[in-house]
């Protein structure tokens, strides 16, 4: 079975900036995959290379086994892209936009599927409304509908929840989850790392055009060395011996760095020896944000 997405040594340079630098990546069919990275890391450029909006300087990219350059028609039929920018055609209604988009993909008589997408995205009542008259959230839903109009097996969402209210965000993820459950491959970029952690089974992190981490979400979380302990003590004065490990204060807690879990023993011992009493202790689990910060700092 062909991978949903196969990228081999893809590079793209803008002037002296290497936006994508020799990237190798395979995403299997059916995955819910996150592409994370700070602004300017190369996520959108990589998506543009995959979707044909930009051409690579070197390397090969394929969607469902179809080369995005040589077999661009088949490759583009296999992918639906929800762009990051809130773009729309001000001349048309929602339904007209979806009918024209269906036509671009060679599909006629698509009314039943269009009605279904509109219903799933809670857009049915806006079907005959001009795009200009829609709110930002509604326009975002239409972008999702446009990406799905040709029933692509691979769906790429480039920061689809940026500036979207909580209600729509939850409805959108429910819909995308159901698409993934029915076999669609989902590739997602987002700055909301808790979304990626909750939704995606595998994650790639990009920095300066290179992939600096690629693993399952659970392995990435396990790999996090960035741990800390929060302590509330009485009297509220930290022994001098612990000051080098102090990260900061947070709501009355001393936040101390833990290189290893075993460091906790020596911290407790030092506190005992100094006569301090622990009134509360929190040992937070590392989340994807902590993993992300650590990887971006160390790579």
């Amino acid at each position: 079975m062909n991978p949903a997405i196969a990228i081999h040594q893809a590079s793209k340079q803008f002037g002296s900036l290497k936006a994508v630098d020799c990237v190798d990546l395979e995403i299997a069919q059916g995955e819910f995959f996150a592409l994370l990275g700070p602004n300017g890391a190369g996520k959108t450029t990589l998506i543009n290379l995959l979707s044909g909006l930009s051409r690579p300087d070197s390397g090969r990219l394929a969607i469902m086994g179809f080369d995005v350059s040589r077999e661009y028609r088949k490759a583009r039929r296999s992918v639906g892209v929800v762009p990051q920018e809130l773009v729309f055609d001000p001349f048309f209604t929602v339904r007209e936009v979806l009918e024209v988009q269906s036509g671009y993909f060679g599909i006629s008589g698509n009314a039943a599927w269009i009605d279904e997408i509109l219903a799933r995205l809670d857009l049915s009542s806006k079907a005959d409304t001009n795009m200009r008259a829609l709110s930002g959230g509604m326009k975002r839903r239409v972008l999702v509908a446009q990406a799905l109009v040709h029933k692509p097996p691979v769906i790429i969402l480039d920061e689809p929840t940026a500036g979207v209210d909580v209600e729509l965000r939850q409805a959108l993820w429910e819909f995308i989850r159901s698409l993934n459950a029915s076999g669609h491959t989902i590739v997602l970029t987002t700055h909301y790392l808790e979304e990626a952690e909750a939704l995606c089974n595998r994650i790639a992190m990009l920095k300066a055009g290179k992939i600096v981490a690629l693993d399952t979400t659970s392995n990435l979380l396990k790999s996090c060395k960035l741990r800390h302990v929060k302590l509330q003590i009485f009297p509220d004065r930290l022994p001098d011996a612990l000051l080098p490990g102090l990260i900061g204060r947070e709501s009355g807690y001393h936040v101390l760095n833990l290189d290893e879990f075993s460091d906790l023993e020596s911290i407790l011992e030092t506190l005992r020896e100094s006569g301090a009493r622990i009134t509360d202790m929190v040992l937070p689990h590392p989340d994807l944000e902590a993993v992300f910060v650590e990887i971006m700092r160390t790579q």
Partner: protein
Amino acid sequence: MKGFYSLLYKEVVRFWKVGFQTVLSPLLSTMLYLLIFSHVLGDHVEAFPGVSYVSFLIPGLAMMALLQNAFANSSSSLIQSKITGNIIFLLLSPVSYPEIFLAYVLASTIRGVLVGCGIFLITLWAVDIPLRFPLWALVFALLGSFILGATGIVAGIWAEKFDQLASFQNFIIVPLTFLSGVFYSIHSLPPFWQKVSHLNPFFYLIDGFRYGFFGVSDISPYFSLLVVSICLAAVSLFTLGLLKSGYKLRN
């Protein structure tokens, strides 16, 4: 071909939805030209023997409006799509670059011919214009629309803001159409300016188009056809090359 039909449909519906601006407005401005020039010059100028100035003027004005509107259609649609960003929906689709070229050119042709026909319909009641060789008139009308539709694609791709597109239109397209013999026969010009006029491809379009009506022209319609065909081939190849390369579209 379904992709091509969808894009053509979208482009035609787009200009039709703003018909006041894209069809009625050029009809009105052309009628004002006709009114003013025919009133001022009607009794003083005889461009062709036995042909009144008003009759001479109408095919020229119709062709000028046709050319300018064919250009405006593809160029304004493209730059609007680029600036608002919705060009992405076409670029993400499997529609090929020759299909994109054909759809934009044909939509421009439909708008250009619609405006041109509108001018004739409005003037029909007032002026008797012969139509000696309708096929010649039709061929030059279509070739003119194709050329300007394709040129509009080039301008729409090249321009990054409306100001640049307006410059293209005001400094290239408008002067070339005004100085192509719309309002006069080039035989009325001094020899130097007659030679300069022969370098203007729009002159051949208008002269050939006029031949279809009066059976009289400044130069042979066969020669005009040759020049216009070469221009069309050159502009088309250049435009197709731009679309294929993805210049300012896929980067």
